């Protein structure tokens, strides 16, 4: 079952920026790109646990602030030479509100 949760307004996140949503499984980073696409991925870099929400957002990628790993926001895959992946979550923007698909978050917390 899909579980869309209204988490914030689009304008609560700066363009080319991110903010986090707290969940029982740690923080999920919500990104807004220069052209107002919204993505949600795990906030924690698989390399050394850097907070991805604090990275520089360029195109539809983010660069981890600790050691410059670059992640594709849609697939969660590390780019270039680095190997790793973070979980991604579906989002949509409806009437200026950001909705996060949280069924997996709920499922993981129930387990």
């Amino acid at each position, binding site marked *: 079952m899909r579980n869309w*949760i209204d*988490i*914030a307004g689009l304008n*609560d*996140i*700066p*363009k*080319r*920026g991110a*903010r*986090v*949503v*707290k*969940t*029982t499984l740690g*923080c999920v980073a*919500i990104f807004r*790109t*220069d*052209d*107002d*696409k919204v993505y949600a991925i795990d906030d924690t870099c698989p390399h*050394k*646990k*850097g*907070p991805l929400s*604090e*990275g*520089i*957002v*360029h*195109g*539809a*990628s983010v*660069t981890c*602030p*600790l050691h*410059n790993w*670059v992640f*594709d*926001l*849609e*697939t969660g895959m590390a780019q270039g030479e680095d190997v790793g992946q973070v979980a991604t979550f579906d989002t949509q923007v*409806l*009437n200026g509100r950001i909705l996060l698909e*949280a069924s997996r*978050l*709920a499922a993981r*917390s129930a387990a």
Partner: protein
Amino acid sequence: MTQKLVIIGAGMASGRLLEELFELAPDAYDVTLFGAEPRGNYNRIMLSPVLAGEKCYDDIVTHDADWYREHGVTCRFGEAVDKIDRAQKLVITANGATSYDKLVIATGSASFLIPVAGNDLPGVVGFRDLDDVTAMLQAAQAPAGKAVVIGGGLLGLEAAAALNEQGMDVTVLHLMGHLMDRQLDPAAGYLLQQELQRRGIKVNCKAHTKAILGKDQVDAVLMEDGTVHGADLVVMAAGIRPEVRLANDAGLHVERGIVVDDTLLTSDPDVFAVGECVEHDRTVYGLVAPLFDMAKVLAQTLIGQPAGFVAPAVSTKLKVTGVDLFSVGDFAEGPEREEIVFRDPGRGIYKRIILRDNRIIGTVMYGDTADSSWLFAKLKSGEDISDIRDTLIFGPAFPAGAPTDPLATIAALPDDAEICGCNGICKGAIVTAIGKGATDLAALKATTKASASCGSCTGLVEQVLASTLGDTFVIPAAQPICGCTDMTHEDLRRMIKSQSLKTMPAVMQECGWKTSCGCHTCRPALNYYLLAEWPLDYADDAQSRFVNERNHANIQKDGTYSVLPRMWGGMTTPDELRAIADAADKYDVPAVKVTGGQRIDLLGVKKQDLPHMWADLNEAGMVSGHAYSKGLRTVKTCVGTDFCRFGTQDSTGLGIKLEKLLWGSWTPHKVKLAVSGCPRNCAEATCKDVGIICVDSGFEISVGGAAGMELKETEALAKVATEQEAIELTVAFIQLYREHARYLDRAYKWVAKVGLDWVKERVVEDLAERAALCERFELSQSVYRKDPWAEQATPAFQRDKWSALADLTLEAAE
């Protein structure tokens, strides 16, 4: 008996509906048409040319009285409908009731009046119908009239360009960061803004309107930042709002617009809606193409043919004479999307095609839209373009792919573009010298002095050689900043200065960036170069800064931060120490450390505690120590003459003066200073970026030291007699470094590149240059000498930045 069809609204959607209907079944209905305007249907899209004086009303009439008579339409123009009685199937006007079998609501939309005081003053108009245009033309009659257009979208810009044509002094206020933000990306928005400004239209983006001022008539617009724009006319073009009052009052299902299904049927089986007042599949439309599609579907529905409305791909074109602009589809970036970008800085052309799975899903073009219909057709057909991918951006006329010319940027520069800043050598002079036989770098240096001083323009001089000589000159490989551009740091700095590039989109366009918004390597560098060159014009972009500079604290390996308040010259007081101790207690700080820069670091602070801790420290009179920035860090001092038996000068006092002068400034890399009171050098001044050692006869200033990955001793810059001179030399040196060094080069690296003699010439020997450097530094400091903590600890920042967006753990726990 013929069924009675009543239509409310005589605009373009209902006009097209009637055409379609009479084409399919001329006698199916007895039609009555209500229109609030005292005239029939005209082409509203052409209101802009009417306003510009390029067309008149008669040219844009689509259905005249004869047409309505011919088709047996009963016209009730100038008669506003007051209400709909659905139970009795009646439409009520001031003249009485009219019955219907089927009703079509086509009330269109109205200008969205931004909710500020004064939005109802005479002189404030929308831009929806002929009456608005008449009012605007009247206002344009007055000599030297001023118009303010609120809204830099399609409609607002057409109004602005037309009013400008009519001789008005026009200012556009746009809330977002670039013009036509819904149709264009920042790069195309930049080019459009350039063009409008060239025509004399003033454009202000990120402009927040606070109020419209005036007594009996509008006379100015007040902005949130206090700016006032004089105005005899204010055009509201900040968006449109579906006109849904009648439908609402009649109890129909209305969201943003009147909700209809695929057949344009509302929640009442005998009531349809069409046009801009409609909401279909959660979308409201404001462009004409989908409205015409709706009209066709509705005509079929009305005569019982099966038909369904499907949201079409919509393309946009701005109807401003001489502006070529095109946008269609989805042009946002995204993973699994690829983009092809073509920029020709010389001709002001920008094209971007967005692909997904080798299919075009969006296009933005500016300056050359000749291929727009070809690309639009490919987008609509969804065809696989793998085979022509390499040449797609050049259009159908291009037989085989030719690579973009990396020299285009240089070739496009005018002759008076300054290439060598040290010696003031323009491109024209270099080209002339090349013509006279100076065909390599050494010869050019010898004959023109271009790149003969600091050498940072070498890359550009070589490119001028290459673009002038063609294949006979091979440019030695230079390291570009990153994959987004072919330019080196030095090239970029020169372009920003000589071409007066003051925004990131401007730089990316004029310097031929290959990506739409850069990357984590070029953006911080660009942000620094822009703010260093244009302190008053350029607004610092937090999103292009590394986390530490964005959050004004040092991120630690576990995602916590360190907080380090400034201690001027390493001096502190019991009160400050108490405040630091209190903060450490209150926020459970796990570690407190004395740093090498003579101050105290609080380590392991949680992000959400930062603004509160800063507010507490601010309260005690302390400000950010900028321990995180590419900027001034510390000025380390010894106690000097006040206490030390060897001290020769007031080294502590000088250190504090320097720190108070320099703090808050951004530099290419970190800057550390030290002032020692005697040659014993207790402040370790000889491994700093600038070190001052006091002696009996004055001050010895040395520069370019470091004690990091590389250990470097400073080199003597000069010895001066007075404290004032020592301060001026220090400031001038730092400003020269700010203006010339490559981003992330420490001062010693930069000095090694340009040579200490070159630095001395400017900072020590040329007194006029020294004064000018100090003046430019002070100008920049008028913006940046402030405490970022105080700003970031304000309630607005606390709400918008430091806390989580939402907390889903609470919900899960329930």
